[in-house]
């Protein structure tokens, strides 16, 4: 932490949940930071462990075989039986086919994947990626100034602003989506407001002798716009928190130096703040992009028939269409996409560090 860090940063306690490198921990960190608690704050291992410890951080199993067995078996068993086995079954099914209503033969065929790569489904996969990319970009544009405002606020204001960003997080996703439906639908609040404004305009126009057509409500719900709007609404806090964590770690004197040397605020941001905040931007992009690609509820409730995303197609295969092998293949394609996004981010992070 730099010298310039006010005390309140520690008290707010959200910053350290974000590892500097993106990865699974960054995702967990985002969720963990969303948890209603300040206690998960922990110094980074580099600060807390290592040099101070009298003992090495991890000992070989050696003498403590009993302790090791007691600690290792329940979680490992649980992970294998109730997580890895179910996933492996899906993976196996993706190479099989329906031979009767209730039986699936796993015969190693790649037919399901070939089926999934036909234009119809490729289009849906492309659409999912496109929605996720637009959502991430919008979240970055909206979230960056918010993160800047939070990290430069006074300690007291900072705690309140963080609470402001977190609070919707603790509200059920379904309820947040439902709230948007009520706002966006044809007889919803946005259209009511617009209609009210239109009436006022029409009255004004009538005064000068102009005639305006009656207000036609906008179609805001059940289309692609609603899906992206909903995704931004749901994902925005995910973006703000890692950005805030990165900006908060930043050494203020660097900005002051560049201002002293005659740069404007915008130049200082473009050439000093943004490059230094890149790790935070990368993890923010990751934690926004990944859940967006696989979003189910938002396109299901806010989208129209043509705004189906990949998760909706998967659900259909398992519930309505009853084509489990094909659904399994789509699930694994979605999983590979997720891993590819993570690998790309990790690669970008590594190149930055070595550069």
């Amino acid at each position: 932490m730099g010298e310039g860090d006010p005390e309140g940063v520690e008290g707010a306690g959200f910053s350290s949940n974000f590892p500097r490198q993106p990865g699974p921990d960054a995702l967990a960190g985002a969720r963990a930071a969303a948890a209603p608690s300040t206690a998960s704050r922990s110094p980074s291992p580099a600060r807390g462990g290592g040099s101070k410890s009298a003992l090495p951080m991890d000992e070989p199993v050696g003498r403590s075989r009993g302790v090791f067995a007691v600690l290792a078996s329940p979680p490992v068993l649980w992970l294998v039986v109730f997580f890895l086995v179910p996933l492996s079954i899906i993976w196996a099914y993706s190479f099989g086919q329906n031979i009767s209503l209730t039986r699936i033969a796993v015969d190693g065929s790649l037919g399901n994947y070939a089926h999934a790569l036909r234009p119809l489904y490729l289009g849906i996969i492309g659409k999912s990626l496109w929605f996720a990319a637009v959502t991430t970009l919008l979240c970055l544009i909206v979230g960056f100034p918010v993160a800047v405002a939070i990290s430069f606020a006074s300690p007291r204001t900072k705690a309140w602003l963080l609470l402001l960003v977190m609070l919707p997080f603790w509200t059920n996703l379904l309820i947040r989506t439902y709230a948007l439906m009520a706002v966006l639908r044809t007889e919803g609040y946005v259209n009511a407001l617009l209609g009210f404004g239109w009436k006022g305009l029409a009255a004004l126009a009538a005064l000068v002798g102009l005639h305006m057509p009656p207000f036609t409500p906008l179609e805001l719900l059940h289309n692609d716009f609603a899906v992206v709007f909903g995704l931004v609404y749901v994902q925005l806090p995910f973006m703000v928190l890692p950005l805030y964590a990165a900006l908060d770690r930043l050494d203020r004197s660097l900005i002051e130096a560049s201002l002293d040397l005659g740069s404007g605020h915008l130049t200082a941001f473009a050439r000093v703040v943004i490059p230094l905040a890149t790790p935070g931007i990368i993890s923010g992009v990751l934690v926004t992009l990944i859940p967006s690609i696989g979003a189910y509820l938002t396109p299901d409730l806010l989208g129209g028939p043509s705004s189906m995303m990949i998760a909706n197609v998967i659900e259909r295969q398992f519930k309505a269409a009853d084509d489990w092998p094909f659904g399994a293949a789509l699930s694994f394609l979605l999983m590979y996409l997720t891993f590819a996004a993570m690998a790309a981010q990790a690669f970008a992070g590594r190149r930055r560090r070595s550069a």
Partner: protein
Amino acid sequence: MRSPTGPLDYLRRWPLQVWLATTAVFLYAPLITLMAFSFNDSKRNIVWRGFTLKYYALTFADADLIQAFVNSLTIALVSTVVSTILGAMTALLMWRFRFPGKAALDGALGLPIVVPEICMGVAMLVFFTEIVPWPTEAPWPLNLGSIIISHISFSFSFVAVVVRGRLASFDRSLEEAARDLGAGEWRIFREVLVPHMQPGLIAGALLAFTLSLDDFVITFFTSGPDTTTFPIKVYSMVRFSVTPEVNAASTLLIITTVALTALALWLQGPGVTQAPQAGEGLLP
């Protein structure tokens, strides 16, 4: 009198203030209108026609909805207890030991966090219909078993991450000191490690509880007609139409979550957040 604006007082600049205010409206307006209109005495739900509590009465009279709420709380409670224990064990294991296959286990533990919910949902659906057919007509708490198991599977990795973060700040010379003073493995665990882990355990448990209460997608694939949870029930109401009853039910859930959160923050008090700093202060 206002003090002069410093060069880095970005919050004092109006464009940023406008931006913040707009974002706040964007985040809150939908939720606040939802809550406000649950008290609106109108079926059409858009024009204010006066205050009423009748939709709350309807909500409390809806036995299915109450049952779904009880189910959700039961599932969240059991899943929290089990995943906190499993998560703490995982954290201790990964923190303390070096063993062959550790990197692989670490990767596998990250999977429940990164695997898209829908993939995990369908995996659980197949597992609980084909491999271990769960008796959904079993007596009450047992029929929720498949949902509870699925929730534990995705929660405990999150708990492990949080607790591991906390353990990273543990000074192992304390353990050494306890050992020198004659404490055994169990006593060290109970009297030295657990007190240090406590804030992490509380945070992890809260996270697990929220994750479970919030989950829709995975539950959607593991619940049967007799085992609906609150989100599943609300979903079927929402699919049907936007009604004041849904608003009332949603408001109740929002208030429950916010109250639980406030309670948790209050229970932990300021002492907890300061504890690590105090601990660090003791060291040279």
